[in-house]
């Protein structure tokens, strides 16, 4: 089963690069949604063949992740996108070409870090650690390189996806409540950002965060 985990992780990584490469907000949101859906499958492929108790735990976690990461949050973001009336990320701080190339370098760094980092116990899937680090770094890159608040929220979600992947290393030690707490945190974060985006959009007629830096009294 861990072979499928590697396949899923690879797809997660490629979707991360895709978010970096596209200028369409709708496509980027959907890519992050698919990423979330794939991450929901991850615990199932990693766990299996244990007790019923553990299976229930994994099943509930997957279901929660699926609902939250693949349905609710992307739905909220798509709605915000429609109400704020933005479709495209125009003129990001770093051009799309350059950010894809930087992303490739970051993936390389993530793989290098994955190979020098020694975990107390080996990761359940080969690609788990490098993909977690790469998704994390790509999320950071999206946050700092884009102007639109929605894309920055997407970067935040990718960051969280990276943390989630890394959490799979410790899946057996991490109590259920902590995982639920993290998921709830993200939901609240997105809610707050959704409201913030709405307000920015109403004040300035767009959601370009660059406008915020020119505020003065």
């Amino acid at each position, binding site marked *: 089963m861990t072979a499928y985990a*590697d396949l899923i992780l690879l797809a997660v990584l490629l979707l991360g*690069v895709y978010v970096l490469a596209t200028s369409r907000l709708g496509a980027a949101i959907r890519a992050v949604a698919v990423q979330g859906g794939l991450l929901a499958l991850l615990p199932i492929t990693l766990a299996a063949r244990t007790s019923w108790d553990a299976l229930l735990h994994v099943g509930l976690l997957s279901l929660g992740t699926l609902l939250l990461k693949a349905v609710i949050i992307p739905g909220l973001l798509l709605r915000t996108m429609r109400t704020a009336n933005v479709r495209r990320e125009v003129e990001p701080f770093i051009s799309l*070409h350059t950010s894809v190339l930087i992303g*490739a370098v970051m993936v390389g760094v993530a793989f290098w870090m994955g190979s020098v980092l020694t975990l107390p116990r080996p990761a359940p899937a080969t690609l788990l650690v*490098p993909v977690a680090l790469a998704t994390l770094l790509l999320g950071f890159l999206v946050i700092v390189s884009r102007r639109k608040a929605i894309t920055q929220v997407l970067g935040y979600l990718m960051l969280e996806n990276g943390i989630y992947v890394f959490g799979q290393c410790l899946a057996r030690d991490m109590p259920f409540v902590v995982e639920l707490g993290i998921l709830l945190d993200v939901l609240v974060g997105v809610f707050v950002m959704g409201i913030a985006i709405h307000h920015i959009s109403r004040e300035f007629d767009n959601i370009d965060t660059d406008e915020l830096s020119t505020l003065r009294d």
Partner: protein
Amino acid sequence: MIETLLHVALLLALPPLSLGVINKVKAFFAGRNGPPLLQVYFDLWKLLRKGAVYSRTTSWVFRAGPIIGLATTLAAGLLVPLTGAAAPLAFGGDVIAFAYLLGLGRFFTMAAALDTGSSFEGMGASREATFSSLAEPALFLALAIVCIPAGAFSLTEALRALPWADWGAARPVYFIAAATLFVVLLAECSRIPVDDPNTHLELTMVHEVMVLDHSGPDLAFIVYGGAVKLFVFGALLVQLLVPVSTLDLLPGAAAMVGGQLALAALVGGVESVMARLRLVRVPQFLIGASVIATIGVAILLYRGHA
């Protein structure tokens, strides 16, 4: 001996058929009947019987372009195994020879376009140079994904060493290699979404504009060379996706032909459902392919480390 003859026969005879299949699929999507499957053969025969017209401003470079283009592509075709047997030419490092034989042919096609002295053709050559310089890293990285696990730098050996038993789930990097090679195929063979082989709108032409001044047998060589190039890249892709090299001579050849026809149908499908990318978007498409292939190489090196 018989393997070599079969290889050469396949390489010489089949390429125009792939183009025919592509055109037929495109016609099917458009709801037309389309030209007959063998139309490309008829066209080539017609062109070969015609005379060529040469401008007084051109030199020997213009005449050499199509011939060298076809010769290098055919030579590259000898390096890729087409049947269950090894390729007629196989030596350590033929991966590099493969890429640069195609590069040499491209260089002479561009030189011939520049030789006409037409600014329009120069523009086409410049676009071709830009796109191919971006497609080359993608090609090399995809070949690296194939070669690194095998530890061999010969196409025949590397393709033989593919782990067919645990291909799919266990070795996701081969998906990456296949996807990258497909993008390189579309770019190198001037298909949609990189270039439109049927366009005659001046501002959007890339490959077609470079061959505008060629006529008669020269044009036949260019059309045929383009078909062979598609066939050679297709052969690499089919070898990567179908266990041709584990089969015997004839079943292997049959699998290769079937794979090539399926691939041609796929290319036709892609051309029918996709629009051409804007010129400024093409580099991004190709860089994306290189980046994906880089990730594949990173995974392989990471595994080697672990």
